[in-house]
């Protein structure tokens, strides 16, 4: 009996360590294979020029259109989502403070929206677009992506705002301030690090998602210069180049994947670094 227990425990410990090692290994393999393939194909020209004629048959040019396009789209959507999201998160935590049932219901709905696949947003955005007579454009892409990252933004900010201690709230009230002051002056300042993390997290989502921009943002070889024109995005440029039969173009898809991965890694590093840095302004209890 005793021995069987020991064997069982040893067996599961080995399995546990194997699973943990497997996850670490997989991450390593993903990063390695993307870097290894991408480094071979990447060049300065690729990063700094737009596709020239015959680019999709392996001739010169680059993916600047997609890099700039993705950045513009993700920035636009993040800013818009921030402008809508911060008030919602503050409202939940300041004005609805104490109304537990209602707050829980709102959080629940937000979690539900978070779970909706991005392709559904894509289809929805496309329908809206057709309804109001809009073409595939930067604007339509921004609106769709905003809807898609909104729950992520609000819920991550909410998780931080709800940790603001009641004592701080009461102290602010006792000094005679009203709810808006409490929300925008105290809560926001107290949660700067968390808000930055939320914004960067949403930005990462926005720049990496392809399914929601597939029908709404369109694709173009030019740099974006108007809200009403189509815009190229990195995920889609990877996808399109990869489906080409020409080997050189496929190589470029790997290089584009490298660019996207590096952007994501930088964003995630930044959110860790900034989060730590602004922690200092926080009053600790």
């Amino acid at each position: 009996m005793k021995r069987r227990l020991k064997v069982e425990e040893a067996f599961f410990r080995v399995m546990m360590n194997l699973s943990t090692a497997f996850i670490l290994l997989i991450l390593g393999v993903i990063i390695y294979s993307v870097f290894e393939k991408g480094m071979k194909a990447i060049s300065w020209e690729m990063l700094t020029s737009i596709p020239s004629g015959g680019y999709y048959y392996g001739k010169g040019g680059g993916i600047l259109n997609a890099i700039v396009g993705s950045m513009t789209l993700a920035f636009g959507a993040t800013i818009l989502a921030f402008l809508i999201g911060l008030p919602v998160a503050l409202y939940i935590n300041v004005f609805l403070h104490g109304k537990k049932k209602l707050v829980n219901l709102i959080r629940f709905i937000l979690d539900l929206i978070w779970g909706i696949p991005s392709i559904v947003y894509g289809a929805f955005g496309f329908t809206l677009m057709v309804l109001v007579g809009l073409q595939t454009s930067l604007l339509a892409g921004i609106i769709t992506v905003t809807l898609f990252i909104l729950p992520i933004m609000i819920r991550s900010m909410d998780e931080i705002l709800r940790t603001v201690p009641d004592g701080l709230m009461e102290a602010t009230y006792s000094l005679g301030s009203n709810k808006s002051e409490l929300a925008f002056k105290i809560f926001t300042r107290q949660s700067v690090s968390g808000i930055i993390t939320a914004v960067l997290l949403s930005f990462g989502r926005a720049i990496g998602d392809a399914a929601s921009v597939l029908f709404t943002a369109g694709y173009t070889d030019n740099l974006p210069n108007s809200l009403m024109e189509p815009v190229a995005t990195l995920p889609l440029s990877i996808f399109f180049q990869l489906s080409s039969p020409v080997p050189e173009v496929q190589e470029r898809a790997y290089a584009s994947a490298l660019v996207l991965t590096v952007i994501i890694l930088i964003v995630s590093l930044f959110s860790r670094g900034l989060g730590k840095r602004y922690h200092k302004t926080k009053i600790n209890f």
Partner: protein
Amino acid sequence: MLISLSLVAFLPFLLFSVLYFKSFLLLRDFGLGQLIFSHSWHPSRGEFGFYPFIIGSIWVTLLAILISTPICLLTAINVTQYARKRFLRIMHPVIDILAGIPSVVYGVWGILVIVPFISRYLGPWLGIKTMGYSILAAAFVLSIMIIPFILNIMIEIFKTIPMELKEAALSLGSTKWQMVKHVLLRKALPGIIAAVGFGLARAFGETMAVLMVVGNVVKVPTSVFDPGYTLPALIANNYGEVLSIPQYDSALMFAALLLLVVSLFFNLLMHFFISRYNKY
């Protein structure tokens, strides 16, 4: 503030009604049962059977869950019960990065690594001829993609299990593994189910990575080495050409509606499982 809030709160209803309204054309002409259970998909002839796509989606999702659940469970137990505290601090960035990698990059990785692995090694080794682009490849890529979600929830759940409970078990003379098996896992079971359910919902709606490795052949798959087609891939692949045929447009909206309903249903269900951990 209120305007923003109401916009967000009504978003799911808005999504549902718009998609329902758009797919109404198809639902009226064919009826729900026929759409879901019919095998023949010939949009140009006006035949819309979603069965191959639904089955493809279910296969891919279930396989992915089967692969990632044990891995996540074992790892979560390992990092919360056995490993040193410092290790958890290493694990968090790993989970963050895995969750942050865009699905297109997962797709690229699948094409670079998984597809050749299946077509060159796994297939021949089992004596099966396969292209590599298959249900199995999609399931494998998907299982990696949902690991961070499931693992994260499981770690959080295991952290909520009170220390006293574990100490009580240990003081009665049980070994650590007995404690894990009889106390931790039993107490965390609803949370584990919820974690798997959330993973399931996420896997069901994943588009790009699956689209890139699943093969996209409209056929009811008979083995995991067969190529298949999933609902999200169907929408993503065909959007360009549908505007000319209103029924086709409606069909893709119906697919989106199905995805929405499945995702809402699973998330709702799992919240009931997880609500007892007073997350709210």
